[in-house]
């Protein structure tokens, strides 16, 4: 096994911390469902971001983006996550209550 000298180790740690920090920020995007509404309804994220939806209603909802992703029915407090690896606009809706629509813009 190759050993790292002190300087290289320091650089590696710094890089890892930076990477973690970047990931933590990118991973942290959330959309809440309250009162049959996606909040925020429109969200702009960087490529590689994971978005997590949480249903806070007493009625199940789904998150569906045609041809891109489709959650199961989320009961109260259930979540669904999707990682956006490609830039673009992702329109989505609740297939049970189609008047509920949202948009994730991935840059």
């Amino acid at each position: 096994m190759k050993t790292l000298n002190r300087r290289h180790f320091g650089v590696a740690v710094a890089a890892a911390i930076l990477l973690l920090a970047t990931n933590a920020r990118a991973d942290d995007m959330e959309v809440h469902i309250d009162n049959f509404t996606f909040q925020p309804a429109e969200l702009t994220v960087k490529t590689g971001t994971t978005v997590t939806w949480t249903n806070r209603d007493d009625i199940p909802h789904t998150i569906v983006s045609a041809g891109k992703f489709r959650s199961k029915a989320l009961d109260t407090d259930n979540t669904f996550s999707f990682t956006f690896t490609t830039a673009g606009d992702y329109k989505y809706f609740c297939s049970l209550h189609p008047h509920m629509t949202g948009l994730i813009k991935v840059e």
Partner: protein
Amino acid sequence: MSGHDHGDDGVSRRKVLECMTWAGTGVLWTITGGVPRSLGIVDSAMAADAPGMTFLQISDSHVGFDKPANPNALGTLEEAVNKINAMPAKPSFMIHTGDITHLSKAAEFDNAERIISQTKLDVHYVPGEHDFLDEEVKFYRDRYGRGTKGQGWYSFDAGGVHFIGLVNVVDLKAGGLGNLGAEQLEWLEDDLRGKSKSTPIVLFAHIPLWTVYPQWGWGTEDGARALEYVKGFGSVTVLNGHIHQVMQKVEGNVTFHTARSTAFPQPAPGAAPSPGPMKVEDARLRSMLGVASVNFKQGDQRLAIIDTPLQG
């Protein structure tokens, strides 16, 4: 109509009138040849007294729902069934306009069946969106899909009336409302072909076929197409659920009616931030849940719908 008196033989005129306060806790109306008649005939049109065919509509049982708006939806379904069993005149059959279960779980379907079967009535179901949540939509289809077309639509005749059960909870489009789809509409047109225009028609589906409140998705995108096909018939009745409250209107020969839920009430259109379950005081809950009974008298094409709350 009082919830503590299941042995009540029928409903007195006074009680019905008491229930006709604005909340619509008990509503009776009737039409003759498409013309709405006064409520003064309430006595003679009561399902219990009237000859002719009576059937029941039950809706939105949401078995499995246990949130604050009603922690025991199975219990209130059972109360509804007890009320049905206590009716002095046995109805011919029952229709269920969907959302039998809350989350399409096998156990929820089983519990619903266990309670509803205690009526010993034939039940004609159409699905609500809550009944189609399992990945393969297997549980509903296995139980209720036999002999149906497409996603579960069908028709049958009873008492000289042609009944058509429609499915408008599948393949909903972003930003849209309920959806029947081209295949079902084609089937409907075909199903009605050759029927005498004097045949009374009953259309039933989960989501209202008429536009109640599009902001909350309360309507059916292509519902107008279905209504176009039944336009020439002398008596058309459209029965829906989904909105968990009584609403009705008459348009020409077509009468529209939505039934209460047996599980939880929902707010009047626009009266709350969302159409979610409405939490009311425990004492009021049963006045906002219930079933509907529908009576047809042959000959005069008179139809009467009586909405009975679990507790007046």
